[in-house]
């Protein structure tokens, strides 16, 4: 498609930029944003298949992260470990067809390549209290020495499945199934209230 009709976020009508919650004198404890127009493609293949490994490397420019809970990064593309035979490729490319086609072309048909760009709403959580907010939600160890940049974990927050990626020390991306997005957004806002939080403008990409 040449002219892609604008994609609408699940949070479109619930998203208001601004500062909320407890008074924070311009230093919000938490920053929240939604990342839009990402390409997200699930890749399922056999981890012992050298052809598959090579194909992904050539298509993505990085190695497949085999270690559970790890992420490989090549430029604006991340390859995120989901399960022993499942990865999620994420890029800021707004037309999801391109990433899907690239991967499809690179892999033979023993590999599943599934566009899931519209299946998730991606929320960015950052700020000095971001880890505390995660601690409220999930029974994982979010200590800065344990959950480090480049780590990923799939867990439950407020009864929703969430894939958490640690971007840097105080920044996390939350991949939430689209239908749960509003619930998760409300939960994040409630959990951030006591620290004072800022909803930034929508991040495109």
């Amino acid at each position, binding site marked *: 498609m040449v002219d892609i*009709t604008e994609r609408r976020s699940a949070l*479109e009508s619930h998203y208001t930029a601004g500062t909320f919650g407890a008074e924070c004198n311009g230093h919000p404890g938490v920053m929240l944003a939604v990342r839009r127009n990402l390409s997200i493609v699930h890749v399922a293949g056999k981890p012992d298949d050298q052809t598959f490994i090579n194909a992904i490397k050539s298509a993505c420019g990085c190695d497949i992260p085999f270690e559970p809970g790890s992420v490989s990064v090549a430029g604006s593309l991340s390859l995120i470990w989901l399960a022993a035979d499942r990865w999620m490729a994420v890029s800021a490319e707004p037309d999801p067809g391109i990433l899907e086609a690239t991967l499809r072309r690179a892999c033979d048909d023993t590999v*599943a390549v599934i566009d899931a760009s519209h299946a998730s709403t991606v929320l960015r959580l950052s700020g000095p209290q971001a880890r505390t907010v995660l601690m409220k*939600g999930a*029974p994982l160890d979010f200590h800065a020495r344990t959950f480090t940049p480049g780590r990923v974990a799939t867990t439950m927050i*407020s009864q929703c499945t969430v894939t958490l990626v640690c971007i840097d020390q105080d920044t996390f991306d939350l991949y939430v199934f689209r239908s749960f997005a509003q619930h998760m957004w409300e939960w994040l806002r409630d959990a951030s209230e006591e620290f004072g939080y800022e909803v930034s403008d929508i991040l495109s990409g």
Partner: protein
Amino acid sequence: MNNPQIPQYRLPEGGRIDRSRPLSFSFNGRAYVGYQGDTLASALLANGVHLIARSFKYHRPRGIMSAGSEEPCAMVTMRQGSRIEPNIRATQIELYEGLVANSQNCWPSVNFDLQAIINKVSRFLPSGFYYKTFKWPKFLWMSYEKVIRHAAGMGKVATLPDPDHYDHMHAYCDVLVVGGGPAGLMAAKSAAASGARVMLADEQAEFGGTLCGRAEKISNKPAMDWVARVRDELAARPDVTLLPRTVVASYYDHNMLVLNQRTGEHLPTAEGFTPRQRIWKVWAKQVVLATGAIERPLVFGNNDLPGVMLTGAVQTYISQYGVLAGKNAVIFTNNDSAYDAAAHMHDNGIKIAAIIDNRKQTSPAAQKLSDRGILIFNNHVVYQAVGSKHVRGVNISPLNENGDKLSGGNIKIDCDLLCMSGGWTPSVHLFSQARGKLRWHETLTTFIPEKSFQQERSAGSCKGVWGLSDCLKGGAKAGAEAAKAAGFTKTRALKTPAASNHDMGDIRALWRVPQPPRSQTKRFIDFQDDVATSDIELAAREGYRSVELTKRYTTLGMGTDQGKTSNINGLAVLSEELGKHIPEVGLTTFRPPYTAQTLGAISGPERGGHFAPTRRSPVHDWHVSTGASFMPAGLWMRPAYYQQPGETMWDAIYRETKHVRSHVGLVDVSSLGKIDLQGKDSAEFLNRCYINGFAKLPVGKCRYGVMLRDDGMVFDDGTVSRLAENHFMMTTTTAKAGPVLQYLEYLLDVVWPELDVHVVSATEQWCAIAVAGPKSRELLSRITDIDMSNEAFEFMGVRQGNICDVPGRIYRISFSGELAYEIGVPSDWGLHVWESLMTAGKDLKVSPYGLEAMSILRIEKGHIVGAELNGRTTADDLGFAAMISTRKPFMGQRSLRKPALLEGERKQLVGLISLDGKTPIPRGAQIVVNPDGPTPVAMLGEVTSNCYSPHVENHIGLAIVKRGRQRIDEILWATSPLTKQRVRVKLCSPHFIDPQGERLRG
């Protein structure tokens, strides 16, 4: 009173209160003043208020007995309106400006309580009174119950919604230290010095534990200076989390503990954004329990009078709050700890009228008090406290040689405060919850930890160690051990500062103080539940041998305090009655939580609209803006119908139903499960999953499939579309989207790992819109580049192309029985496509329809849903026998040969029609031949779906009925005794419309 600003019982200086911050509060409608740092209990005592509550059963006057979470008597109702909360211990309520508290369990007032009459007849209300009295005559129970319900219970809960919010937190640490007293602080300090991640929790607002309420010295300076220094050192470490006001409530398996942090209880309201309470779930590699010990009451007559207090508590009120609990005290003890206390009280201006010590020998600890001229009576007991609403004096008497009788020579001593010390009970609650093994210690007369079961160790007085210096050393050692065990191998115990090391001396256990002959005076053991010695004696006489059963019969230890002050005394009395050694009788189980928890904190943020997540389709906002009424479908919120002005609900539903049959309607079916299958064995895999064949399904076609469970029952149904040679898209019912995916993953991972198939949920990726009705083709042909003609796009075809300028798929499938299509577009474009369809179809009168109309349409067509796929129906029962392939194996196939699935009496799917043309068919009704026949009436089957059909213009339904297909045209009854509805029904084919399928193929 010389200075009206300082209440009568407040010391002119001292205490850990902030005298520059007076706080006004109200108790039972009267205004009082206390200080920042007070508890409600200390502020009331400072004002000379001792009468706080009325007891649970006998409505006896009760005061303040302790200074902590063990308090069994001083229970009040806090706050007002929607924040009202009963049974809160005054000893744990931090004072704040404007605090409002009231006595409970009394009417009209705590001072004059009408139900106190119960106390006068208490001899007729022994243990088990309730069971013994109200069991006959049986028919009067309903009347008894009303009265009992009124009289029973403690306090009243709020009936309005809770306006506060609560939070949850999860944390991991290397060492969790429970208790911030000397042992706990030292343990935390030792563990933290190793670099371990340490959490330290204490139920008080201030760390220090017992030290807050004593005149102890550490390194020759006030002990609280040391506490402050250690606390500051710990706070400065980034890997130490300090949690004051946090009770460690429960200890579970895998060293997981649950903590309750009172984040907002000390504030007038937990205003702004601070939660009122926060529940922490902590996974600790190692735990140090430094939970301290609780002083035991002595069991003498009227020991529950206001003004009778635990000795250590009186010290705490002096040192922590600068409050004198009385001015003229008698101390009754069986151990040495009371002598330090007596000196402490005496130093602060309390007159010590006498110290009554039941031990025969004068303790060396007594010397410094007799030097001050204080009377000490050895081998004496206080056998009764005297007073009505406050203690006025005590009757004391020497004991006989055996210590089991009074030997005459009574003396009455006046006092306004009676301090009792029956020794100390280590707080082994968490240790026991963690399944640690206890041992009875003869000289300490208490249970102490013997063997840990989980990764924990005890330190300080919870281990039966009393001296301050020993507690500090024990803490340092335990903290270092814990850090070492958590992997910080080079850890060593830190040096401890110099401190006193007084112990309790030898205790002379006297579990029940003897009474004069024929005395009726009650000696209480469990103050909260009004259990006296007589109750346990009665239970023993009636044959109770087990401590657990005695507990339930007498209610010993069953109050909200969980018997913190009463368990050992109660157990000892039972042992004496049974003539057994205490450890033989055993101890009741310690159960979580350590102190009562607020339900709000347990539910945390999961309440109201967030009790469970709500799932919303990509078109949700459109449904909202057009005034749809919603209904939940699992977690999804789906439109039920779209009411127009002037319409009733049923008008809207029938209009939508008819509109689909005559024009064209849109329904949002995004919630249906969608599973993407790829891999070269996908077709083979589908063949094995469904009863019907999929190997030969051509690309560009879809097929209806039925999946069985292992046991041969139908698991789910749906369609499978072949998008490419090795690429399929499966749909499932909304409810089974998760379970089907899970099942497929299981089959691929465990049963057939050799198959090259990958399954991925695609439910969220696609917005699905069903377009149904005779005009649906015309509508779609306007918005897509796909050739929609009947020739090019036949029934059960699948096409990919542009839809409203976005890439998507169209499936020619029909749930309604009409010419219909289902559109799939990526979710972010779903709303755009829906709106475009509404615009493009304006002249075709396109209209949305909801779940209600969809349900009627599918019942008319005889399509099944979860009600029919109820786990008890086979493919044959549902009319799918012809679909079952005989040329391939599939999951559940073998079970189809089970006799129970072959027998002729199975229930089969049929249609029902109301015989009189007007009576509705009740939901869930039973199908019977004669509802008035002899009971039990034989049930032939049940109604699974029901509705009024605008098409048939009658009430119709679907049912599963024994040999139903052979009963077509039979007239039976559908009866629902529960709702008192019945209707005569005629059995018919489940296809009420277009049985040949001409509409959907047209």
